[in-house]
């Protein structure tokens, strides 16, 4: 029962299958990010980042160790390079490691793809100088690494991502609530999950998370077979999580399945739009650097929108 040809993914800089063939998660993440950096030279969107560093004119009293001597050599002026710590963003990658992620029809599972995505985001953010933390969950929160910006911490994070998933069920709402309790400081929260839960159960925890002032991006990872339901032969479909079986004739059930899935996706999309959450649906056949690109592009757009509406928001908050 092979799934049929999936929707052709956009061509990325690094092919997904080639990427997933790399055993080391860290190496995988680095490949994506480095490919992404080299790709930026051709990109019209260069010059943005999570929080870009800035230079400031030297004033007497500043520590001369922070003078940028290269700029001085070029321009004969004294500029102080602002400490990266000062502009750091606190990021948390929240990764779904439930059994439903343990499905794959094209050579790698959703869990592997999601872990690579999380590692890529973490690596990228680390390169930007941001503090990155990790929170994994299935039916409850499993691992928690607080946000830090240290190379050893990044290694630790990669190691945690490589650990096998042991969970059975999924409960996104509970862990999200728990995330809101753990992550007190405002920051960026990157949710990576398949979001195969009724949208109404997600509304409340997401609202709480957004209300805590976090900036949230939701990455939904789906397998092409899940997305297109391209099975042909009837068989017993077994729920990976709870083992329930259902006799399904795919030919007859496909249209109904696709319409239900579309409704689910629409509900999630509208919920995220309402809460100001970036909604990034990804197929496991989709290039990761493009996913990163989409994320940053969307964030830049939102950043501009937020900057333009900042006074109104500030007033509302007050």
């Amino acid at each position, binding site marked *: 029962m092979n799934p049929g040809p999936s929707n052709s993914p956009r061509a990325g800089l690094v092919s997904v299958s080639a990427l997933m063939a790399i055993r080391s998660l860290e190496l995988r993440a680095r490949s994506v990010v480095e490919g992404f950096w080299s790709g930026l030279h051709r990109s019209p969107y260069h010059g943005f980042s999570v929080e870009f560093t800035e230079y400031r004119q030297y004033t007497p009293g500043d520590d001369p160790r922070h003078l940028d001597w290269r700029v001085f050599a070029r321009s004969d002026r004294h500029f102080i390079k602002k400490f990266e710590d000062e502009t750091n963003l606190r990021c948390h990658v929240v990764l779904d490691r439930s059994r439903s992620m343990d499905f794959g029809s094209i050579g790698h599972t959703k869990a592997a793809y999601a872990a690579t995505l999380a590692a890529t985001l973490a690596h990228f953010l680390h390169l930007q100088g941001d503090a990155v933390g990790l929170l994994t969950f299935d039916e409850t929160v499993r691992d928690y690494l607080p946000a830090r910006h240290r190379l050893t911490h990044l290694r630790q994070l990669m190691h945690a991502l490589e650990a096998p998933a042991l969970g059975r069920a999924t409960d996104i709402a509970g862990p999200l609530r728990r995330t809101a309790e753990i992550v007190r400081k405002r920051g960026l929260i990157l949710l990576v999950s398949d979001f195969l839960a009724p949208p109404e159960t997600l509304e409340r925890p997401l609202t709480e998370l957004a209300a805590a002032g976090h900036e949230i991006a939701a990455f939904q990872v789906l397998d092409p077979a899940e997305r297109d339901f391209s099975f042909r*032969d009837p068989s017993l479909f077994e729920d990976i*999580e709870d083992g329930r079986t259902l006799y399904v004739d795919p030919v007859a059930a496909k249209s109904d399945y696709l319409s239900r899935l579309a409704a689910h996706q629409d509900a999630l999309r509208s919920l995220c739009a309402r809460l100001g959450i970036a909604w990034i649906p990804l197929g496991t056949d989709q290039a990761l650097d493009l996913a990163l690109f989409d994320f940053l592009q969307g964030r830049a757009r939102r950043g501009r929108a937020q900057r333009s509406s900042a006074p109104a928001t500030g007033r509302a908050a007050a």
Partner: protein
Amino acid sequence: MSLLAPWFLLGALAIAGPVIFHLIRRTTRERTPFPSLIFLKPSPPRLTKKSRLEHLLLLALRCLVLALLALGFSRPFLRKAEPPATDPSAGVRTVVLLDTSASMRRPGLWDAARAKAVKILDESGPADRVAVLTFDREVATRFSFAQWAAAPMGQRPALAKSTLDSVAPGWFSTRLGPALVRAAEEFNDNEPAGAAGGARRRVVVVGDLQEGARLDPLQSFEWPPGVEVVLDPVKPGSPGNAGIHLVPDSGDADRGSDPVVRVRVVNSPDSHREQFRVGWSGPGSPAPWIAPVDIYVPPGQARVVSLAAPTNSAGLDRIELRGDEEPFDNIVFVRPPVPGQVDILYIGTEAPTDSRQPLFFLRRALPETRRQIVRLLAVKPSDPLPPENLAASRLVVATARLPEGSAAALRTRMEAGATVLFAPPTAADAAGLARMLGVPSVEIVDAKPANYAMLGDLDFRHPLLAPFADPRFSDFTRVHFWRLRGFKGQLPAGARVVARFDSGEPAWIDFPVGRGRLVFAASGWAQDDSQFALSSKFVPWLYALLELSGATAPTAPNPIVGDPILLPTGRTADLAIVAPDGKRSTVAPGEPRFEGTATPGIYRIGTGTEMREVAVNLDPAESRTAPLGTDELERLGVHVGRAGTNPVAGTVPPVVAQAAEAENRQKLWRWLIVATLAILCIETVIAGRAAARSTIPREATS
């Protein structure tokens, strides 16, 4: 192709099963793992259209398996060119084989068998022909087809019946195999070609059809097609029988040991009795019953009992089994072997204690046994030969130079039938050879091989070497000879070289002299001559020489009824033989054996004053009275039909019987089952591959 059980073809309707199952969307047990079922609804199995038949190759294979199974169960066979169908108007050719063996002496059996034979004769129609044969150890034609044809129409059955009036069961063993072969040949021998036409041919065997019936010749006999054997057994009033037989005893045992007679008591599997008694008995009424021994033999088993030979054996010549209802095989006759006296005259110069000389070995090679007492008289060559000893000795061994007088005396004795073994120690000592052979001169030359000589060319057909004819015993290469006396020149007429050395020179020569013979040994068995005396060949060779000379009778232990009694060779006078019933017969000197052992008992053989007694017993196989299985005959290729005196009204129609026989012979169903299994294997492989193809490979978590 024809079918023996065509209704089994209905089983092929089961082909509908796979077709329907292939039409139904499989409610498969294959599982497809899926992340979440929240968007799925169960769908019912449904029939696809005819054009959607799935896995056509698998469907074809499954249907083929069912079809082959159905075909196999219907037992197909190929009809071959059938023999011409029997023509009811041509009548029936029947050979009645009537058993007259010893086991038919049981009460009531013979009368019943005879009544059955008479019934067959009475029921014969005008077109039928009947031949009557009786069999036990031999087959006797009582009334042939030719006699039947020659007799007037109305008197045929009566004439045939009259031939049975004088017939009664004897004491011989049952040899059913030769009897069946003879009966089958009766159709060809005694009926002119084509006379039988389309007549049905059958052999009706009437008798107790016991397990002990010998079927040996049937193994090498191709049973003629169209001849049917009908077994018509007669049953005794009470089943079961026990018998007693003598266990062969080796005659080489020491004479001093206590004589013991061993008998085997056999109880047939269908017997009801287990407790028997065995004891010495003798003739006379009432018969004596000495030292009975209780013995327990379960049905189907046998026990061997050792009975001490009575010290005063006068009148006790048999061992009797009591406790069995069938008396025909309950007596075994025993005669202790009477040691024969063998006189040997030895002519030599050496002392009997000289362990390097021939006499020393000769004495030790011929010990006294239960069967014979050897008296060896040694005389010096210089002494005249004692006439009375010379006359008594059938074997003379000379290992020294013989004076003229002795040589002449020996020649005279040889001409009267004696045997002389002449082994001169040197060529010069062989001077008397020419005189003994009656030729002017003989050239004998001393020879000494460079290393040693061996016997190369041996004539195992000669009685002297006959005991070594078996390849296990024919290796003489370990016997080395160091000194030879080569016989040069032309051998006299009639002389036969028994063995030659590897150099080609004669080693042992057999010269016929009158009614006797002279055996010349070119090398003796003295230690200076050869190793012969120390080899394992020496003693058997000496005994063969004794038998050749007629000094000892050839041994034939425990003869059974019908076996010939071997008589001593080299006799000069007629032998009188007294049978157990007192009947006296005479055997001429040239006859090597006595054939008339028709009853079990003690046969007395001798010249009048000196009588030797030989016990002749019943064949042990006659005691095996359990019924013979028809499958045994069928295994030997005999076409066995059903019992029934009226063949036309037989229960099995001939066409069906022929079809069943053809099917049974061809066994095509076996090949169909093999083909079914092969197709099932192919189906399994193809189905396995199809299943593997249709399953989404589950990826292991990375």
